[in-house]
Protein backbone atom coordinates (compact mmCIF):
# COMPACT_ATOMS: atom_id res chain seq x y z
CA UNK A 1 0.00 0.00 0.00
CA UNK A 2 1.43 3.37 -0.89
CA UNK A 3 1.66 6.09 1.70
CA UNK A 4 -1.01 8.10 -0.15
CA UNK A 5 -3.55 5.33 0.26
CA UNK A 6 -2.82 4.50 3.90
CA UNK A 7 -4.69 6.25 6.69
CA UNK A 8 -1.65 7.54 8.51
CA UNK A 9 -3.82 9.03 11.24
CA UNK A 10 -4.09 5.74 13.08
CA UNK A 11 -1.96 2.71 13.87
CA UNK A 12 -4.13 -0.07 12.45
CA UNK A 13 -1.97 -2.87 13.82
CA UNK A 14 -2.78 -4.42 17.21
CA UNK A 15 0.13 -5.52 19.35
CA UNK A 16 1.34 -6.06 22.88
CA UNK A 17 3.62 -3.32 24.14
CA UNK A 18 6.63 -3.81 26.40
CA UNK A 19 8.96 -1.19 27.85
CA UNK A 20 11.84 -3.14 29.43
CA UNK A 21 14.35 -1.23 31.53
CA UNK A 22 17.29 -3.59 31.16
CA UNK A 23 19.02 -5.15 28.18
CA UNK A 24 18.56 -8.66 29.61
CA UNK A 25 14.84 -8.14 29.94
CA UNK A 26 14.64 -6.89 26.34
CA UNK A 27 16.64 -9.87 25.05
CA UNK A 28 14.41 -12.25 27.00
CA UNK A 29 11.30 -10.72 25.38
CA UNK A 30 12.92 -10.80 21.96
CA UNK A 31 13.79 -14.44 22.35
CA UNK A 32 10.31 -15.31 23.64
CA UNK A 33 8.57 -13.60 20.72
CA UNK A 34 11.22 -14.36 18.14
CA UNK A 35 10.11 -13.54 14.64
CA UNK A 36 6.86 -11.95 15.71
CA UNK A 37 8.18 -8.83 17.38
CA UNK A 38 9.64 -5.48 16.48
CA UNK A 39 12.12 -3.33 18.34
CA UNK A 40 10.81 0.21 18.83
CA UNK A 41 13.36 2.97 19.33
CA UNK A 42 12.56 6.41 17.90
CA UNK A 43 9.55 5.12 15.98
CA UNK A 44 10.15 7.45 13.04
CA UNK A 45 10.64 4.49 10.68
CA UNK A 46 8.83 1.63 12.44
CA UNK A 47 5.55 3.44 13.14
CA UNK A 48 5.39 4.81 9.59
CA UNK A 49 5.80 1.24 8.28
CA UNK A 50 3.16 -0.04 10.70
CA UNK A 51 0.73 2.68 9.60
CA UNK A 52 1.12 1.35 6.08
CA UNK A 53 0.88 -2.27 7.31
CA UNK A 54 4.26 -2.98 5.74
CA UNK A 55 5.11 -4.64 9.05
CA UNK A 56 2.56 -5.99 11.52
CA UNK A 57 4.41 -7.19 14.62
CA UNK A 58 2.32 -8.76 17.39
CA UNK A 59 4.81 -7.66 20.04
CA UNK A 60 6.50 -4.26 20.19
CA UNK A 61 9.52 -3.90 22.47
CA UNK A 62 10.41 -0.31 23.28
CA UNK A 63 14.14 -0.10 24.09
CA UNK A 64 14.30 3.63 24.82
CA UNK A 65 13.97 3.16 28.57
CA UNK A 66 17.07 0.98 28.80
CA UNK A 67 19.68 3.31 30.27
CA UNK A 68 22.68 1.23 29.21
CA UNK A 69 21.63 1.52 25.55
CA UNK A 70 21.65 5.30 25.42
CA UNK A 71 24.98 6.61 26.48
CA UNK A 72 27.99 8.12 24.75
CA UNK A 73 31.21 7.03 26.47
CA UNK A 74 34.84 7.82 25.96
CA UNK A 75 36.97 4.70 25.68
CA UNK A 76 40.72 4.39 25.41
CA UNK A 77 40.89 4.22 21.63
CA UNK A 78 37.49 5.42 20.55
CA UNK A 79 33.91 6.31 21.42
CA UNK A 80 31.13 3.92 22.42
CA UNK A 81 27.64 5.01 21.42
CA UNK A 82 24.60 3.12 22.74
CA UNK A 83 22.20 2.10 19.97
CA UNK A 84 19.21 3.91 21.51
CA UNK A 85 21.08 7.22 21.74
CA UNK A 86 18.99 9.94 20.13
CA UNK A 87 20.43 11.51 16.98
CA UNK A 88 20.07 14.89 18.67
CA UNK A 89 22.34 13.72 21.52
CA UNK A 90 24.94 12.49 19.02
CA UNK A 91 24.73 15.82 17.21
CA UNK A 92 25.20 17.81 20.41
CA UNK A 93 27.99 15.70 21.91
CA UNK A 94 31.16 17.78 22.25
CA UNK A 95 33.21 14.58 22.27
CA UNK A 96 31.83 13.47 18.92
CA UNK A 97 32.23 16.94 17.44
CA UNK A 98 35.85 17.07 18.49
CA UNK A 99 37.01 13.48 17.89
CA UNK A 100 34.89 12.25 14.96
CA UNK A 101 33.37 15.40 13.40
CA UNK A 102 32.23 13.61 10.24
CA UNK A 103 29.66 11.69 12.30
CA UNK A 104 28.26 14.92 13.68
CA UNK A 105 28.10 16.36 10.15
CA UNK A 106 26.15 13.35 8.91
CA UNK A 107 23.75 13.15 11.85
CA UNK A 108 23.01 16.89 11.75
CA UNK A 109 21.85 16.46 8.16
CA UNK A 110 19.16 13.91 9.04
CA UNK A 111 15.52 15.03 9.00
CA UNK A 112 14.34 17.81 11.29
CA UNK A 113 14.95 18.71 14.94
CA UNK A 114 11.75 16.85 15.83
CA UNK A 115 12.94 13.73 14.00
CA UNK A 116 16.40 13.92 15.60
CA UNK A 117 14.81 14.29 19.05
CA UNK A 118 13.06 10.97 18.46
CA UNK A 119 15.17 8.88 16.09
CA UNK A 120 18.18 6.94 17.36
CA UNK A 121 21.56 6.15 15.85
CA UNK A 122 20.91 2.41 16.12
CA UNK A 123 17.52 2.83 14.48
CA UNK A 124 19.07 4.67 11.56
CA UNK A 125 21.35 1.64 11.03
CA UNK A 126 18.81 -1.13 11.73
CA UNK A 127 16.32 0.39 9.32
CA UNK A 128 19.09 -0.43 6.81
CA UNK A 129 18.13 2.14 4.22
CA UNK A 130 20.77 2.23 1.46
CA UNK A 131 20.63 6.02 1.92
CA UNK A 132 21.17 6.18 5.72
CA UNK A 133 23.29 9.25 6.43
CA UNK A 134 24.89 8.01 9.63
CA UNK A 135 25.88 4.78 7.87
CA UNK A 136 28.29 6.37 5.38
CA UNK A 137 29.98 8.37 8.15
CA UNK A 138 30.35 5.24 10.30
CA UNK A 139 31.73 3.35 7.27
CA UNK A 140 34.36 6.04 6.66
CA UNK A 141 35.27 5.91 10.35
CA UNK A 142 35.81 2.13 10.32
CA UNK A 143 33.21 1.57 13.06
CA UNK A 144 32.06 -1.68 14.60
CA UNK A 145 28.57 -2.69 15.62
CA UNK A 146 28.06 -4.50 18.92
CA UNK A 147 25.25 -7.02 18.73
CA UNK A 148 23.59 -8.50 21.80
CA UNK A 149 21.64 -11.71 22.34
CA UNK A 150 21.03 -13.96 25.35
CA UNK A 151 24.21 -15.83 24.35
CA UNK A 152 26.28 -12.66 24.79
CA UNK A 153 27.82 -9.93 22.67
CA UNK A 154 29.43 -10.12 19.25
CA UNK A 155 31.19 -7.47 17.19
CA UNK A 156 30.46 -7.04 13.50
CA UNK A 157 32.34 -4.62 11.29
CA UNK A 158 29.95 -2.02 9.91
CA UNK A 159 30.69 -3.17 6.32
CA UNK A 160 29.23 -6.57 7.19
CA UNK A 161 26.27 -5.20 9.16
CA UNK A 162 24.23 -4.24 6.11
CA UNK A 163 23.18 -7.21 4.00
CA UNK A 164 20.65 -5.62 1.64
CA UNK A 165 17.94 -2.96 1.46
CA UNK A 166 16.18 -3.20 4.84
CA UNK A 167 18.18 -6.21 5.99
CA UNK A 168 21.06 -6.53 8.43
CA UNK A 169 23.31 -9.12 10.02
CA UNK A 170 20.99 -9.20 13.07
CA UNK A 171 19.49 -12.59 13.86
CA UNK A 172 15.88 -12.85 15.05
CA UNK A 173 16.92 -13.04 18.71
CA UNK A 174 19.54 -10.30 18.47
CA UNK A 175 19.47 -6.56 18.83
CA UNK A 176 21.96 -3.82 18.12
CA UNK A 177 23.37 -2.71 21.49
CA UNK A 178 25.84 -0.09 20.38
CA UNK A 179 28.63 1.11 18.17
CA UNK A 180 32.31 1.53 18.61
CA UNK A 181 33.83 4.40 16.66
CA UNK A 182 37.64 4.53 16.70
CA UNK A 183 39.34 7.90 17.02
CA UNK A 184 40.74 9.43 13.86
CA UNK A 185 44.45 8.76 13.37
CA UNK A 186 46.87 11.74 13.25
CA UNK A 187 46.74 13.84 10.09
CA UNK A 188 43.27 12.71 9.04
CA UNK A 189 40.71 14.92 7.37
CA UNK A 190 37.09 13.84 6.94
CA UNK A 191 34.01 15.14 5.19
CA UNK A 192 30.33 14.27 4.76
CA UNK A 193 28.25 15.55 1.85
CA UNK A 194 24.84 14.76 0.44
CA UNK A 195 22.43 15.86 -2.22
CA UNK A 196 18.67 15.77 -1.93
CA UNK A 197 15.68 17.53 -3.40
CA UNK A 198 15.13 19.57 -0.25
CA UNK A 199 17.24 19.69 2.86
CA UNK A 200 14.69 17.52 4.72
CA UNK A 201 14.65 14.86 2.03
CA UNK A 202 16.29 11.45 2.09
CA UNK A 203 19.62 11.62 0.27
CA UNK A 204 19.74 11.11 -3.49
CA UNK A 205 23.42 10.33 -2.97
CA UNK A 206 25.52 10.77 0.16
CA UNK A 207 29.20 10.28 0.79
CA UNK A 208 31.69 10.36 3.64
CA UNK A 209 35.40 10.43 2.98
CA UNK A 210 38.56 10.20 5.04
CA UNK A 211 42.01 11.23 3.81
CA UNK A 212 45.16 10.73 5.85
CA UNK A 213 48.24 12.57 4.68
CA UNK A 214 51.80 11.65 5.58
CA UNK A 215 54.82 13.41 4.09
CA UNK A 216 52.65 14.89 1.37
CA UNK A 217 51.12 11.62 0.16
CA UNK A 218 47.88 9.85 0.96
CA UNK A 219 48.74 7.11 3.43
CA UNK A 220 45.17 6.06 4.07
CA UNK A 221 41.86 6.80 2.44
CA UNK A 222 38.25 5.73 2.86
CA UNK A 223 35.34 6.53 0.58
CA UNK A 224 31.83 5.55 1.58
CA UNK A 225 28.80 6.10 -0.65
CA UNK A 226 25.09 5.79 0.06
CA UNK A 227 21.96 5.40 -2.11
CA UNK A 228 24.02 3.96 -4.97
CA UNK A 229 23.83 0.24 -4.13
CA UNK A 230 21.61 -2.16 -2.13
CA UNK A 231 23.52 -1.09 1.01
CA UNK A 232 25.76 1.82 1.94
CA UNK A 233 29.19 0.81 0.61
CA UNK A 234 32.93 1.43 0.71
CA UNK A 235 34.44 2.01 -2.71
CA UNK A 236 37.60 -0.04 -2.29
CA UNK A 237 38.85 0.41 -5.89
CA UNK A 238 38.95 4.20 -5.61
CA UNK A 239 40.51 3.99 -2.14
CA UNK A 240 43.24 1.66 -3.47
CA UNK A 241 43.94 4.01 -6.35
CA UNK A 242 44.57 6.94 -3.97
CA UNK A 243 46.92 5.16 -1.59
CA UNK A 244 50.50 6.42 -1.87
CA UNK A 245 49.62 9.22 -4.33
CA UNK A 246 50.04 12.96 -3.92
CA UNK A 247 46.57 14.48 -3.35
CA UNK A 248 46.44 16.75 -6.40
CA UNK A 249 43.09 17.80 -7.87
CA UNK A 250 43.74 15.51 -10.87
CA UNK A 251 44.37 12.50 -8.64
CA UNK A 252 41.26 13.14 -6.52
CA UNK A 253 39.23 13.66 -9.71
CA UNK A 254 40.43 10.33 -11.10
CA UNK A 255 39.48 8.60 -7.82
CA UNK A 256 36.00 10.15 -8.05
CA UNK A 257 35.70 8.91 -11.64
CA UNK A 258 36.69 5.39 -10.56
CA UNK A 259 34.16 5.54 -7.69
CA UNK A 260 31.36 6.55 -10.06
CA UNK A 261 32.30 3.70 -12.40
CA UNK A 262 32.28 1.08 -9.64
CA UNK A 263 28.78 1.79 -8.38
CA UNK A 264 25.58 0.27 -9.75
CA UNK A 265 22.81 2.63 -8.66
CA UNK A 266 19.16 2.11 -9.52
CA UNK A 267 16.52 4.42 -10.91
CA UNK A 268 13.81 5.19 -8.35
CA UNK A 269 11.44 7.91 -7.21
CA UNK A 270 14.33 10.16 -6.12
CA UNK A 271 16.68 9.98 -9.13
CA UNK A 272 17.72 8.04 -12.19
CA UNK A 273 20.74 5.73 -12.14
CA UNK A 274 22.55 7.96 -14.66
CA UNK A 275 22.00 11.03 -12.48
CA UNK A 276 23.26 9.21 -9.39
CA UNK A 277 26.47 8.23 -11.20
CA UNK A 278 27.12 11.81 -12.32
CA UNK A 279 26.32 13.24 -8.91
CA UNK A 280 28.47 10.64 -7.16
CA UNK A 281 31.47 11.72 -9.21
CA UNK A 282 31.04 15.38 -8.28
CA UNK A 283 30.17 14.66 -4.66
CA UNK A 284 33.14 12.33 -4.08
CA UNK A 285 35.49 14.86 -5.69
CA UNK A 286 34.21 17.72 -3.51
CA UNK A 287 34.22 15.60 -0.39
CA UNK A 288 37.78 14.33 -0.97
CA UNK A 289 38.98 17.90 -1.59
CA UNK A 290 37.35 19.04 1.65
CA UNK A 291 38.81 16.10 3.59
CA UNK A 292 42.25 16.90 2.15
CA UNK A 293 42.00 20.53 3.24
CA UNK A 294 40.88 19.54 6.74
CA UNK A 295 43.67 16.94 6.94
CA UNK A 296 46.29 19.58 6.22
CA UNK A 297 44.94 21.74 9.04
CA UNK A 298 45.13 19.08 11.72
Amino acid at each position, binding site marked *: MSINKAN*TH*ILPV*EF*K*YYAPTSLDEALQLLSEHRGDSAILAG*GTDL*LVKMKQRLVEPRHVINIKHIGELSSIEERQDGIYIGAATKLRAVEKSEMIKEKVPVLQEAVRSI*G*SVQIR*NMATIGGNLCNASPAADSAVALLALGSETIIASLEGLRDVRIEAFFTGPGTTALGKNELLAGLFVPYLPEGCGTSFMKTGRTSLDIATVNTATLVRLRNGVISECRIALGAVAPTPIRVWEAEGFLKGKKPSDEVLGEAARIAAECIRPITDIRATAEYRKEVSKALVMDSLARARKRGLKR
Partner: protein
Amino acid sequence: MIVTRIELTLNGRKRRFDIEANELLLNLLHEKPHLTGTKYGCGIGMCGACTVLLDGEPVLSCLTLAADVDGREVRTIEGLAEGGKLDVVQQAFLEEGAVQCGFCTPGFILAAKALLKENPQPSEEEIREYLKGNSCRCTGYVNIVKAVKRAAEESK
Protein backbone atom coordinates in the same frame (compact mmCIF):
# COMPACT_ATOMS: atom_id res chain seq x y z
CA MET B 1 -7.35 -4.90 23.15
CA ILE B 2 -5.39 -4.54 26.36
CA VAL B 3 -5.88 -1.26 28.09
CA THR B 4 -3.15 0.27 30.24
CA ARG B 5 -3.26 3.24 32.52
CA ILE B 6 -0.67 5.95 32.03
CA GLU B 7 0.01 9.05 34.04
CA LEU B 8 1.59 12.14 32.58
CA THR B 9 1.97 15.82 33.28
CA LEU B 10 -0.11 17.48 30.61
CA ASN B 11 0.25 21.25 30.37
CA GLY B 12 1.40 21.38 33.95
CA ARG B 13 -1.33 19.14 35.42
CA LYS B 14 -1.06 15.48 36.38
CA ARG B 15 -3.48 13.48 34.26
CA ARG B 16 -4.35 9.78 34.05
CA PHE B 17 -5.62 8.07 30.91
CA ASP B 18 -6.57 4.53 29.98
CA ILE B 19 -4.98 3.80 26.65
CA GLU B 20 -4.55 1.03 24.14
CA ALA B 21 -1.12 -0.13 23.01
CA ASN B 22 -1.58 1.14 19.46
CA GLU B 23 -2.91 4.53 20.49
CA LEU B 24 -0.92 7.49 19.20
CA LEU B 25 -0.21 10.47 21.44
CA LEU B 26 -1.87 12.78 18.89
CA ASN B 27 -5.12 10.79 19.01
CA LEU B 28 -5.03 10.61 22.80
CA LEU B 29 -4.75 14.41 22.96
CA HIS B 30 -7.66 14.87 20.56
CA GLU B 31 -10.00 12.26 21.96
CA LYS B 32 -9.58 12.23 25.73
CA PRO B 33 -8.74 15.72 27.03
CA HIS B 34 -10.17 17.15 23.76
CA LEU B 35 -7.08 19.20 23.07
CA THR B 36 -7.47 19.75 19.35
CA GLY B 37 -4.84 22.48 18.97
CA THR B 38 -2.25 19.89 17.96
CA LYS B 39 -2.88 19.19 14.29
CA TYR B 40 -2.74 16.05 12.21
CA GLY B 41 -0.94 16.84 8.97
CA CYS B 42 0.94 14.17 7.04
CA GLY B 43 1.12 11.39 9.62
CA ILE B 44 4.60 10.32 8.47
CA GLY B 45 6.94 12.85 10.05
CA MET B 46 7.35 15.31 7.22
CA CYS B 47 5.22 18.34 8.17
CA GLY B 48 5.61 19.14 11.89
CA ALA B 49 1.95 20.09 12.40
CA CYS B 50 1.63 17.58 15.26
CA THR B 51 4.65 18.94 17.16
CA VAL B 52 4.33 18.90 20.96
CA LEU B 53 6.97 19.41 23.65
CA LEU B 54 7.91 16.16 25.36
CA ASP B 55 10.03 16.86 28.44
CA GLY B 56 10.65 20.24 26.82
CA GLU B 57 11.87 18.91 23.46
CA PRO B 58 9.84 19.17 20.25
CA VAL B 59 8.68 15.76 18.98
CA LEU B 60 6.00 14.52 16.59
CA SER B 61 2.89 13.32 18.40
CA CYS B 62 1.64 11.40 15.32
CA LEU B 63 4.68 9.12 15.56
CA THR B 64 4.73 8.75 19.34
CA LEU B 65 2.89 5.98 21.15
CA ALA B 66 0.73 7.24 23.99
CA ALA B 67 2.21 4.43 26.10
CA ASP B 68 5.63 5.97 25.60
CA VAL B 69 4.78 9.21 27.42
CA ASP B 70 3.89 7.46 30.70
CA GLY B 71 5.50 9.41 33.52
CA ARG B 72 6.66 12.22 31.26
CA GLU B 73 5.76 15.85 30.65
CA VAL B 74 3.79 16.89 27.59
CA ARG B 75 3.08 20.48 26.63
CA THR B 76 0.70 21.37 23.82
CA ILE B 77 -0.25 24.72 22.32
CA GLU B 78 -3.11 24.96 24.86
CA GLY B 79 -0.52 24.97 27.65
CA LEU B 80 1.47 28.01 26.62
CA ALA B 81 -0.69 30.95 27.67
CA GLU B 82 -0.60 31.68 31.39
CA GLY B 83 -3.40 33.32 33.33
CA GLY B 84 -5.18 34.35 30.14
CA LYS B 85 -2.05 36.06 28.82
CA LEU B 86 -0.54 34.80 25.57
CA ASP B 87 3.01 33.52 25.58
CA VAL B 88 5.56 35.91 24.07
CA VAL B 89 5.92 33.68 20.97
CA GLN B 90 2.14 33.51 20.46
CA GLN B 91 1.88 37.30 20.81
CA ALA B 92 4.73 37.81 18.33
CA PHE B 93 2.99 35.55 15.78
CA LEU B 94 -0.10 37.76 16.10
CA GLU B 95 1.82 41.01 15.82
CA GLU B 96 3.74 39.90 12.74
CA GLY B 97 0.76 38.34 10.98
CA ALA B 98 2.57 35.03 10.96
CA VAL B 99 -0.73 33.16 10.78
CA GLN B 100 -2.61 32.58 7.55
CA CYS B 101 -4.83 29.49 7.58
CA GLY B 102 -3.40 28.68 11.01
CA PHE B 103 -3.08 24.93 10.61
CA CYS B 104 0.70 24.83 10.96
CA THR B 105 0.80 27.53 13.64
CA PRO B 106 0.68 25.40 16.83
CA GLY B 107 3.58 23.28 15.57
CA PHE B 108 5.60 26.32 14.56
CA ILE B 109 5.00 28.07 17.88
CA LEU B 110 6.05 25.05 19.94
CA ALA B 111 9.14 24.45 17.81
CA ALA B 112 10.03 28.17 18.09
CA LYS B 113 9.51 27.98 21.85
CA ALA B 114 12.03 25.12 22.07
CA LEU B 115 14.47 26.99 19.82
CA LEU B 116 14.39 30.12 21.99
CA LYS B 117 14.90 28.11 25.15
CA GLU B 118 18.01 26.55 23.65
CA ASN B 119 19.25 29.60 21.78
CA PRO B 120 17.62 32.82 23.08
CA GLN B 121 19.00 35.05 20.32
CA PRO B 122 19.09 32.99 17.12
CA SER B 123 20.19 34.36 13.75
CA GLU B 124 17.79 34.19 10.81
CA GLU B 125 19.72 31.20 9.48
CA GLU B 126 19.47 29.41 12.82
CA ILE B 127 15.72 30.07 12.94
CA ARG B 128 15.23 28.69 9.43
CA GLU B 129 17.40 25.66 10.18
CA TYR B 130 15.56 24.86 13.42
CA LEU B 131 12.10 25.28 11.89
CA LYS B 132 12.99 23.17 8.83
CA GLY B 133 10.74 20.38 10.08
CA ASN B 134 7.61 22.55 10.05
CA SER B 135 5.82 23.15 6.77
CA CYS B 136 3.48 26.06 6.04
CA ARG B 137 1.34 25.43 2.98
CA CYS B 138 0.30 29.08 2.80
CA THR B 139 4.07 29.70 2.52
CA GLY B 140 4.02 32.44 5.13
CA TYR B 141 7.60 31.76 6.15
CA VAL B 142 8.85 35.35 6.01
CA ASN B 143 6.45 36.52 8.69
CA ILE B 144 7.02 33.40 10.77
CA VAL B 145 10.76 34.10 10.85
CA LYS B 146 10.01 37.74 11.70
CA ALA B 147 7.76 36.63 14.56
CA VAL B 148 10.44 34.40 16.06
CA LYS B 149 12.92 37.28 15.84
CA ARG B 150 10.44 39.58 17.54
CA ALA B 151 9.83 37.05 20.32
CA ALA B 152 13.60 36.79 20.84
CA GLU B 153 13.90 40.57 20.91
CA GLU B 154 11.08 40.92 23.41
CA SER B 155 12.48 38.25 25.70
CA LYS B 156 15.79 40.12 26.09
